[in-house]
């Protein structure tokens, strides 16, 4: 299935762009996606941490990704 990755902040720098369409295996979870991204972009592992959001909500690692979903990578936030 296809997913669209949207990256902000330092994640955008690491992915060389704010959007990226990837092909991942059906039934993948956020945890699987994290593993794939870290393999492809090892710099992600140097971050303090990073989370994922779908439809404006933080999602946990067991979330089953659906076809064509937009998934946002959230590096450590630093507002204020």
């Amino acid at each position: 299935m296809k997913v669209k990755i949207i990256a902000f902040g330092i994640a955008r720098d690491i992915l060389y762009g704010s959007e990226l369409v990837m092909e991942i295996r059906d039934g993948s979870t956020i945890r699987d996606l994290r593993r794939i991204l870290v393999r492809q972009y090892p710099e992600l592992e140097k971050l303090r941490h990073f989370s994922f959001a779908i439809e404006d909500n933080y999602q946990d690692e067991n979330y089953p990704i659906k076809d064509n979903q937009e998934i946002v990578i959230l590096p450590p936030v630093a507002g204020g």
Partner: protein
Amino acid sequence: MDKHIDIQLSALPLDPVHAENFVHHPSAGGIVHFVGTVRNQTQSKEVIRLEFEAYESMALKELKKIAVHVCGQWPVQKIAIHHRVGVVNVGGVAVVISVSCPHRKDAFEACAYAIDKLKETVPIWKKEIYKDGEIWVSAHP
């Protein structure tokens, strides 16, 4: 949106007066405002400016969650949270949080909680620009 809550993400300079005026209330006795400004240095490095980037739809949602939670935990009459996006120069205002309560102790606690929480959960990122480089704040351990 709840008329006691005013959430704004702004690409234009923030004037703290707007948040302050919003929270004014005839039965408020204590109003506390937090104004976060851009410092000219962090850890001895001279900062030229900041650049704020937000995942806007989610940032607005998370800011509203904080405001609603604060209104549930303390007897808050009104709360405004205004945050900048884009370039903010040294001395410029990055965030304003204003809270009005009947009593001051609640206003202090609620306002301090709101800014702490904002820094934990709201998807906003900032890049510090120095003379000789730049860094995404808090990105690395």
